[in-house]
């Protein structure tokens, strides 16, 4: 275990060094994050006005959803995108071989090899937005509540990671269809708004098939103190299920990779 922690420290140390090679990009990323949040808030504001709600959510409540979306989007740019997009490169260039020959779990390596600090401000901004929205909506604040929020954030992160990893792992077979992660990202954008704002069929889709609801709406409900226990357990169950699926799918993919001569 100690070896894994030490590896992780080295991974991120080198990642930081790489990023500093391109400082301008970090600056651009910061501006982009600010602009993007501004645009999202503007778009959200269009749905509101005096006496208007979105799917039963008030403006400040919807801000919490938007805040969680921002947090997860930041998580995607600090962690998921830089790591998982390199899987296809490793497959195409054959450097996956080097990783498979390291005495360390290959999924660990591929999922945590690097991180991009440019997404961190986005996570901070998202959390601030959650706090602000919660404050405005008069959300009850309790230590237990905060713990549950963190757990649900973890659940959301795990679901997001597993979905993304599942799709990225298909690049073992289809190098060209890596674009499928773009489809996933497009669908995830629906998480900017409370899931109740969508028509019933989409609500089902976003709860059970691509559980966007557990990424943003459910954590927001927890903040507002109106989440129900079954929904929380369903979320935890889904996260565990998706993670197990991602893990076994990776093993399956590797068995294919190592049985084909390449």
């Amino acid at each position, binding site marked *: 275990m100690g070896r894994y922690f030490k590896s992780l420290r080295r991974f991120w140390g080198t990642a930081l060094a790489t990023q500093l090679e391109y400082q301008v*990009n970090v600056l651009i990323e910061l501006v982009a994050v600010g602009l993007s949040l501004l645009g999202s808030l503007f778009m959200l504001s*269009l749905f509101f006005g005096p006496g208007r709600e979105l799917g039963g959510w008030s403006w400040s409540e919807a801000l919490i959803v938007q805040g969680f979306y921002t947090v997860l989007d930041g998580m995607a740019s600090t962690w998921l995108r830089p790591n998982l997009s390199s899987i296809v490169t490793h497959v195409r260039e054959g450097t996956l071989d080097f990783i498979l020959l390291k005495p360390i779990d290959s999924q660990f390596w591929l999922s945590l090899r690097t991180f991009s600090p440019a997404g961190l401000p986005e996570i901070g901004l998202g959390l601030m937005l959650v706090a602000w929205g919660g404050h405005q909506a008069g959300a009850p604040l309790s230590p237990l509540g905060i713990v549950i929020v963190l757990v649900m954030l973890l659940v959301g992160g795990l679901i997001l990671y597993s979905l993304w990893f599942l799709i990225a792992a298909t690049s073992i077979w289809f190098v060209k269809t890596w*674009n499928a992660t773009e489809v996933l990202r*497009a669908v995830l954008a629906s998480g900017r708004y409370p899931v109740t704002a969508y028509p019933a069929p989409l609500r089902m889709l976003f709860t059970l098939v691509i559980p966007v609801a557990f990424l943003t709406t459910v954590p927001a409900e927890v903040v507002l103190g109106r989440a129900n226990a079954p929904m929380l357990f369903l979320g935890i169950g889904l996260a565990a299920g998706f993670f197990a699926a991602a893990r076994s799918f990776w093993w399956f993919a590797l068995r294919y990779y190592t049985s084909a001569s390449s």
Partner: protein
Amino acid sequence: MRIFGLNRKILRVLLGTEYAHMLEYRAEIALWALSGVLPFIMLSLWNGSDARSALGMDGVALDRYFLSAYLVRQFSVVWMVYDFEDDALTGRLSPYLLQPLHPLWRYVARHLGEQLTRVPFAAAIAAVFFLIQPEAFWLPSIGRFLLAWLATWMAFTIAFLLQSLIAALCFWSERASALERLLFIPFLFLSGLLAPLTAFPPLVRTLAEWTPFPYLIDFPARVLAEQPVNLLAGFAIQLIWILVLLPLVLLLWRAGVRRYSAMGA
């Protein structure tokens, strides 16, 4: 007649090879087409929202607007900066610069070839849309359709020129494509892809109309969806943007090439 090295024969050959090339990437392009579902997600939100009445589109008009927005986007999306950056980094660009054909034409041809490959996927998505919302079905008149086509191509031209500006910056700094992100964000929120411009507060709307973005999606989509729209003003402004951007791109490009060859890269 040759326009920056392009004549009919070269055009035919370029388009033919690029189309064949893009056909190789069918699966990728299908997924790209699918990843453009954002307008439909926004449509379902607007349909169920209290704010719908403020849009000034009743009944099926909103359905048609967002479907049109999707289609316009499919046939005006530009990605040349990524291809260009790749070509510049891998050194494929140098031989292009030596040929008696302006390199930008190659990228134009790639996009047109790709658009052709997208037709069946976009049609399939439109068909699915009409299956779910049969009452939204409409066939624009031939005249309208041609106008919408023209507006979409003008939109494509503006988007292409904007991205060429950024691509030209690659001559000065590697990875200038990061700047593309800064261009994409205002496009996303101001073009009408997420909400028709009529939803904007008057001040924002006026400001947005001073940018090229509404003419990339909102205007062509309204033409296609047969919404009331000032055709003459729309086309005139599209043309003005092209006339403003074109010389800028050519100047910057020429300066960039000079720098590129001076560095002996």
